[in-house]
């Protein structure tokens, strides 16, 4: 079990928070095309879980994926460059918000298909272990994903083959506009129980609580245990996707619920564990990092359209283009 490090944990949630706020500005400014699914409000989960991981571990994220990539330690500048579609981006500008990946640090990528990454990470962890590593994996997903058959199949495979994957359900109460109660018969923990996977619920707004639960699960997995599930209750502070900033959908979340939800702020909660001086120092450091990241991203070159298909085939297969 890794020791508590409140400053580090605060730095992570603060970094994600400010990264997302800057990213939303860049969406509005037109520098990020296509918009993003902001992770605002859910920072404690990525931060807490990633604090439990070692260098050899791997994770796979979601469409709301910036937090996972950053918490795992990806360079915020290259991450932001990716969102801006620049060659210096993590994915050389080919992936964008929903596919940001950094395989060098075990981030298999955000993923635009809900429920898809659970089985992928299970295979990756199994393979790493077969090759002699002590890898564990984390599969992040939302409350909506537990209704996807492909994810439930992955639960079965991981449990059957005792692949140490920590399934982390970020229950923010909604899948886009669909409330959990309208979509999930039974319960999220029950979905794990169905496959004999131990599950705990935690307060996802407290980064330290998440960290402790994740460390305990990782320790058990590392000691030879099979997969586990953490349901982290959380709230998304902003929209499902930034297109909602332009086109307002019917109020699908009651205003007082939003107020209550935003009141439990993981950044504030973790920040209160630091002295004012420490907190101010981290805040300044984060701000400097992000200023630099924005400069880096916006000054980086855009990819050359002639290279549009450069990475299409890993084997180097070249294809006919579409021209006449």
């Amino acid at each position, binding site marked *: 079990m890794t020791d508590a490090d409140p400053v580090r944990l605060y730095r992570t949630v603060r970094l994600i928070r400010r990264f997302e706020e800057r990213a939303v500005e860049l969406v509005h400014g037109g520098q*990020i*095309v*296509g*918009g993003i699914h902001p992770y605002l409000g859910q920072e404690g989960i990525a931060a807490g879980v990633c604090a439990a991981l070692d260098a050899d571990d791997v994770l796979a994220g979601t469409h709301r994926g910036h937090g996972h990539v950053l918490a795992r330690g990806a360079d915020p500048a290259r991450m932001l460059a*990716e969102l801006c*579609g*620049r060659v210096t981006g993590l*994915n050389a*500008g*080919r*992936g*964008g*918000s*929903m*596919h940001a990946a950094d395989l060098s640090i075990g981030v298999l990528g955000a*993923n*635009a*298909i*809900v*429920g898809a990454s659970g089985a992928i990470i299970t295979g990756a962890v199994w393979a790493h272990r077969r090759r002699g590593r002590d890898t564990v994996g984390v599969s992040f997903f939302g409350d*909506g*994903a537990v*209704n*996807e*058959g*492909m994810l439930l199949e992955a639960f079965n495979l991981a449990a059957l083959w005792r692949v140490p994957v920590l399934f982390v359900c970020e229950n923010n109460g909604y*899948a*886009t*506009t*669909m409330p959990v109660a*309208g*979509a*999930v018969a039974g319960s999220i923990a029950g979905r794990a129980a169905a496959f004999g996977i131990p599950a705990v619920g935690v307060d996802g707004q407290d980064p330290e609580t998440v960290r402790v639960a994740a460390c305990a699960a990782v320790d058990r997995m590392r000691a030879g245990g099979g997969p586990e599930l953490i349901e982290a209750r959380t709230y998304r502070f902003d929209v499902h996707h930034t297109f909602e900033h332009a*086109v307002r*959908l*019917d109020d*699908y979340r009651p205003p007082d619920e939003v107020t209550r939800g935003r009141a439990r702020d993981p950044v504030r909660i973790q920040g209160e564990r630091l002295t004012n001086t420490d907190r101010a120092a981290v805040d300044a450091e984060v701000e400097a990092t992000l200023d630099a990241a924005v400069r880096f991203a916006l000054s980086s070159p*855009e*990819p050359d*359209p*002639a*290279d*549009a*298909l450069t990475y*299409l*085939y890993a084997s180097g297969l070249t*294809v*006919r*283009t*579409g*021209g*006449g």
Partner: protein
Amino acid sequence: MPRLSYRRALTRALGDELARDEAVFLLGEDVQVGASLVTTGLAKRFGTERVRDTPLSEQAFTSFATGAALAGLRPVIEFQIPSLLFLVFEQIVNHAHKFPLMTGGQCRVPVTYLVPGSGSRTGWAGQHSDHPYSLFAHVGVVTVVPATPADAYGLLVTAIRHDDPVVVFAPAGAMDVRDDVDDLVPVPLGRGRIHRFGDDVTVVAIGHLVHDAIAVAEELADQVSVEVFDPRTLYPFDIDGLTESVTRTGRLVVLDDGNRACGMAAEIIASVVERVRLLAPPRRVTRPDGAVLPFAPALDRAVQPGRDQLATAIHLTMKDGS
């Protein structure tokens, strides 16, 4: 003569059919608030029993629709992303499509699969930018890709009334097209439409690309007389209509937002050369083979067939023939 957007034409078609026929109902993700901006207002008008929000269980709700259709209803499913069709390929192709033959004619499966915003939405990257209509033509599911508001209305209405499964692709690039529309009427399946007559070359364009083809034809008007043929339905394809056109012009260029290999452009060319002796080799302007749309906007655009490519293809075809 009211001005109507393509998107609102779809809304109107859904509303009219829900009103006309109790058997019609709508299901999909976030259709009640109308996250796609297509189903806006329908839940209020027709109730949440008939405009049903689903959990993220695409496979189950697609087959749920098959079952409901077997029991006499006419479900319409809205999919938020074109590639969700990959996720339910089995449910559509192996079940909904096959039931009538496999049961020896005991049933019909009138389900409409509506994909608003198919193709690139710019910036939605690799998993949200597919245009997989050719896949459905290959397996033999009726496939419609309307280009204009009137056709969007008319073909969606016809799709809903049709007794077999129909996939309706509403290209992102067409969703904001507006048109003066006199009257909204059903449009028959399998009947193409000539948007612009010409003598020298027939350009077949699909979906939103119809507008690009018309623009290019206008631009080149002083050099070459381009006929623009919009098949509207890809399967069944209006080969008779196209044959008539190509027989007149003698030249063929296809503009298709699908991948090149085994795509609609290939099918159209094969079907034409089986029947018509062309004056010049046919040409196709498509996405590349195996295309995955890269995120960066310039790359995203580079992978889609463009007007320059079409103009070049037209010029080359004209040269070849002479």
